[in-house]
């Protein structure tokens, strides 16, 4: 893991703020932007993968049971999956209510 920019001094920055460990967005917790999260009623899931295709964050993957689930480290809570799911598996709840 690279040092967080919270702890970095000006001496430690790369030339022109260049990033040399490319792909380090994997360490970027976009999940903390979220004010609401998806919850699932998988009884209605037809495993069509529509949510997976539409998620703008690319954070949905298939679990062992074959259901599609968001990785909450990255999920920004945009609710696109909720809107696109044809069988209404997904409901957004606010983070305070979780």
């Amino acid at each position, binding site marked *: 893991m690279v040092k*967080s*920019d*919270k702890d*970095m*001094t*000006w*001496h430690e*920055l*790369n*030339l*022109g*703020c*260049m*990033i*040399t460990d*490319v792909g380090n967005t994997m360490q970027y917790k976009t999940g903390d932007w979220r004010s609401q999260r998806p919850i699932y009623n998988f009884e209605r899931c037809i495993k069509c993968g529509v949510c997976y295709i539409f998620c703008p964050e690319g954070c949905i993957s298939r679990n062992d049971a074959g259901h599609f689930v968001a990785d909450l480290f990255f999920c920004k809570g945009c609710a696109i999956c909720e809107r696109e799911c044809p069988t209404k598996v997904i409901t957004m709840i606010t983070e305070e209510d979780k």
Partner: protein
Amino acid sequence: MSNKPVGMEVSVALSETIMHCDVDVIAAYPITPQTHIVEHLADLFADGEMDAEYIPVESEHSALSACMGSAAAGARTFTATAAQGLEYMHETLFIASAMRMPIVMAIANRALSAPISVWGDHSDVMAARDTGWISIFAENGQETVDLAIMSFRIAEDHKVLLPVFLNLDGFHLSHMIEPVLIPSREEVKAFLPEHIYPAPLHPSKPVAMGECAGPNIYTEAKKQQWEVLEKSIDIIRQVFADFGKQFGREYHLVEEYKVEGAKTLLLTMGSYSETAMTCVDKMRAQGKKVGLIRLRCFRPFPFDDLRKVVKNADTLIVLDRSLVMGGPGGPVMSEVRSALFGRKGMPKVSGIVGGLGGRDITVEDFEKIYDLGEKLANDQSREFAMYGVKE
């Protein structure tokens, strides 16, 4: 290549020099009075004399954007512009410097519209003075050629890696035919090492450039950029010294002319300085204690060098060839005044704005400027004076 000076137009001499610098990529859009520079480079390229990529873009904004791509790939990169062209690049100027792209850009300095003027002054570069570029001024054809070679060496130094403005006055310099000695490819090669960008874009070693910085790190990014630009002054001084050793032509951050014993100094930048020298000779012959200094390097601003040179004078007159609207008069005067303010034994600073939009300043004008400047030094009623304005 002969070691005799050849009479040629300064724009052409500059282009030939750029070729001798073994530039890899040129991306430029023609604009008066820079046109002869890029036209001649295009000729050299089309005639197969130049082993480079020439990108004729659709605008100045694209010109600098293409240059950034080229510099990011580690190529030696040149462009040239003037006036509205430079301002059209404006937002990308900041990006090139903050991303540490060692691009060299010649500016054939020209007044800004409106009213439309194709003639020379320093409004264009002064509007871009805080973009993080190193900014160097040439006074004649030989200096233009020499400083072009030095600009690449400065920009590409691994302690610098910043873009450089090479300023030459539009028409008054760009279109003059002067005797110029163009160093040969071999001589340039001996002075200018191969350009090796530390982390160029390359698929085998991927890097990401130009990404976001949140409030946690933007301040640190700016601090680092400021430090690098500020410290580049030592490298510039060193490059000037090394050039002097190899070519026998001396350059300094602040150039002096008959400063010894001078009570009144005039500060100029660019090609009008040579007329000012003639005026100093004339006034010295009349027993007047006047001298001249010229800022070779405006960014980074040579605070210490300036203070050292002016400390024995009573009055320092600064001639600006651009006007800060609603501000203190001339931008150079404003910086000079703040460099000296509150320090013991420094001269009083008088600001004079003149030579706007190509207006000539003759030797006789310079005599009047010395007189006016001395009067202004003790006049608290105004910040500056415009010279030669028809009342």
